[in-house]
């Protein structure tokens, strides 16, 4: 038995070492260690223990630990017997999207990809920091799809067992397991226990206790940052994050530090934007125009978002790192012979934005002034979480499971409300899908939103998103019961500016709450 265990640890170790060696951060680590070895603190006669000590002292050990911690996260695999079914559904959806891109391209007479002319390249370069002044005609472009279109796709999933296609508007027939309230209580222990959690709403009880608690949290947070230890950062976030430390703690947790390789990488993405004119750029610009540019919370960051979103579309690492690689398009540059050098994946990231995609990045503008730093944290978030919110998959973190979770929670939390929706023939998901798909970005005020995202990281799970959606709907129950049209229901749920995330979640999860 023990031997078996040993052997499995041995295997894991080999796997970790292999993967580390192949990762793009390896070069840095290796060079740093080489430099360390050549110093006097590492002695040849006692190589192993002096090296370990030196690594501890210089922080390289923490660095290595963090890498392994993050590696374990990415390898956390769940498999589901219905993976293939969902995968097929996603591929089918991908194809529909590609088809609509192609028809958009032919309708508008615009090629999907071409080299950018020199003058345009120069103009783009000179306006890189004020891309809102880069003139492009986007008025003919429409978002490829919106959350409600995606919901239709999800609602049409009949489930692999074709027997019951009666309840068209329920997810319940899908064979996915989701957590019920008491299971959620076990996951979100700190919230359920009613632990004191730092959040801006405690400002209203502007008392000394709050100041003391905040000072304690800041001191502890600084300590963790000094130790540079990612698992601690994750644990720390469970009890709320002081605003001044959030950017650094998130960066540490996600391993999104920017050093020279990242700066260079971001430069290549930019270079690629300057070089190629992809139709996707127009869709990105359109999306920013429709969302952030009109939003009093984000309009000031418009120019940063242009940079970040355009570069994101060129990031081929994303396509590589996504689990269940999406189906992607390949297009030949306009006016070039059909050869491999003239063919590119469209877009290189493989991600086709939907209406509101910009909102995955916008809130980070509150945390970073520097677009490169912002980019890598946003990208890490996308690779860990956001991609699951707009793709069909079986994962318990995927949009399908999250919708199902919403549905089940609402059903058992507030059956009368559920029935009211049913009587009106309005699926409650129709109203909340945009919240869930955007993880509430653009819906909650930034301060509350960042607190929500703290807990996504803290518990490394998106399950808090549908939970919050249910709580808000239940919180507005009285007003919802009074209305029966989609427009009126939407009106009741339109304004989330008064929502206080942490207290609401506590109310839902604490046993003696109203739950």
């Amino acid at each position, binding site marked *: 038995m023990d031997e078996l265990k040993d052997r499995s640890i041995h295997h894991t170790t080999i796997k970790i070492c292999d993967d580390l060696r192949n990762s793009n951060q390896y070069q840095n680590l290796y060079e740093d260690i080489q430099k360390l070895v050549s110093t006097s603190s590492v002695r040849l006669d006692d190589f192993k223990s002096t090296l370990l000590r030196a690594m501890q002292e210089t922080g390289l050990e923490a660095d290595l630990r963090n890498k392994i911690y993050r590696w374990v996260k990415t390898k956390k695999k769940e498999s589901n017997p219905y993976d293939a079914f969902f995968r097929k559904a996603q591929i089918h959806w991908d194809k529909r999207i590609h088809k609509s891109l192609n028809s958009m391209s032919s309708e508008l007479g615009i090629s999907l990809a071409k080299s950018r002319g020199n003058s345009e390249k120069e103009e783009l370069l000179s306006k890189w920091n004020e891309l809102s002044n880069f003139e492009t005609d986007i008025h003919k472009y429409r978002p490829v799809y919106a959350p409600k279109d995606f919901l239709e796709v999800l609602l049409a999933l009949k489930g692999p067992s074709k027997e019951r296609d009666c309840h068209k508007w329920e997810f319940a027939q899908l064979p996915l397991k989701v957590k019920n309230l008491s299971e959620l209580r076990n996951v979100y222990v700190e919230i359920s226990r009613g632990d004191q959690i730092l959040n801006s709403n405690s400002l209203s009880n502007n008392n000394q206790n709050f100041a003391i608690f905040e000072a304690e949290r800041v001191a502890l947070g600084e300590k963790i940052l000094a130790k540079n230890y990612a698992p601690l950062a994750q644990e720390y976030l469970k009890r709320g994050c002081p605003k001044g430390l959030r950017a650094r703690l998130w960066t540490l947790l996600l391993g999104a530090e920017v050093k020279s390789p990242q700066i260079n990488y971001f430069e290549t993405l930019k270079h690629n934007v300057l070089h190629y004119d992809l139709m996707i750029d127009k869709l990105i610009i359109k999306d920013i125009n429709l969302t952030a540019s009109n939003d009093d*919370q984000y*309009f000031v960051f418009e120019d940063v978002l242009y940079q970040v979103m355009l570069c994101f579309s060129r990031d081929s690492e994303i396509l590589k790192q996504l689990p269940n690689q999406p189906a992607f398009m390949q297009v030949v540059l306009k006016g070039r012979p059909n050869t491999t050098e003239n063919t590119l994946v469209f877009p290189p990231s493989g991600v086709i934005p939907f209406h509101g995609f910009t909102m995955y990045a916008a809130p980070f503008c509150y945390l970073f002034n520097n677009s490169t730093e912002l980019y890598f944290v946003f990208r890490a978030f996308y690779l860990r979480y956001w991609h699951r919110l707009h793709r069909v998959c079986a994962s318990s973190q995927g949009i399908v499971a999250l919708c199902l979770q919403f549905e089940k929670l609402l059903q058992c939390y507030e059956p009368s409300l559920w029935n009211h929706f049913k009587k009106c023939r309005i699926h409650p998901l129709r109203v909340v899908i945009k919240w869930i798909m955007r993880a509430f970005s653009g819906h909650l005020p930034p301060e509350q939103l960042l607190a929500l995202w703290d807990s996504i990281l803290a518990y490394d799970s998106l399950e808090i998103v549908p939970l919050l959606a249910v709580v808000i709907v239940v919180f507005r129950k009285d007003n919802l019961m009074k209305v029966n049209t989609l427009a009126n229901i939407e009106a009741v749920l339109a304004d989330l500016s008064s929502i206080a995330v942490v207290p609401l979640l506590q109310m839902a999860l604490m046993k003696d709450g109203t739950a």
Partner: protein
Amino acid sequence: MKISFCTDLDKSVVVANCEKRGWLQVGPEDDWNVYWAGTQTCRSLFSVDSGYRMNDNQIINHFPNHYEISRKDLLVKNIKRYRRDLEKEGNIMAERGDSKYLHLDFIPVTFVLPADYNMFVEEYRKAPQSTWIMKPCGRSQGSGIFLINKLSKLKRWSRESKTPFQQQLTKESYVISKYIDNPLLIGGKKFDLRLYVLVTSFRPLKAYQFKLGFCRFCTVKYDSSVAELDNMYVHLTNVSVQKHGGEYNSLHGGKMSVQNLRLYLESTRGKQVTEKLFDQISWLIIHSLKAIAPVISTDRHCFECYGYDIIIDNKLKPWLIEVNASPSLTSTTANDRILKHKLLDNIFNIVVPPTGTPDVRWNKIPLPEALGDFELLIDEDLVSLNENGESGFSRNNSKWK
């Protein structure tokens, strides 16, 4: 008793708020309890000729000589006098270092033209490459403002304006202020803060700051080059200026909330510097009010809500630009409407005593729950209570004395 109100402003936010309270709208000739008036109306009401005498159950939203703070030249004059007086007293607040006031240096160096022309030239010569801003003393909404980077431009201006303006010049004086050429930029754009301050009494001073102000952004990137000196979309943050620009967006109106500014600053620059900035803002508000307190003809029927214009520079130092006695109550966006509704609602909660009937004999110490989104800045009654150890009231007022 049925409360009646009167207003000469056609602002839905005023009427809606009063009606919500069940107050009855009446004309100025009728018996009113609450008058929300324009400054002109208010001044004529208080003028000797009007012969109007208010009873104990009437309140009005302006002090008779509010222009002591809202006129650009008088504000500067009062603040300069306040500093000098403190200095004479030997008050440490008026301490100087390097000839500048250390704690009371919160308005840009300013002179009144044509009166202080020679003093201005002397100051100008110390740093001839700097930019100055010319503003007519009595106007608002950015009208008549221009920037100057050469003395010759000022001379030309005064020559040109002499002929037609000769007589007017005495009437329309200007202030010329050092231009804050290093404003804090967000997204590359200049902005200023619009904050609301309610004063219910000047002697003793009782003032409240509204937590929900906003930043007003320029629509065009900031550019301090000479070529853009005349481009008002770059330099003036007034909504009344910006909304004529091609880039104006009527959904957000170029307005971002102060809470979001605070979130951004705290997240990117840290808690300490952000707190210091906001403390300094409260500090400058209090001292600007103290500076005019001695000259305001205090009247127990009056309260006033001021719109403060503040610019933050890139070292996170706040500068007082001007104080408006009739800040705009027009709503440019949906959020703006919500904010202004709350503002009016909260003001009435504070100025009307808990009995619900305006009463000038009331001690004007509102219940804590009546403050809403206002925060107490200073109440000299409470400060003196504290000093006598009579009250357990524990806000950090002492910080502001």
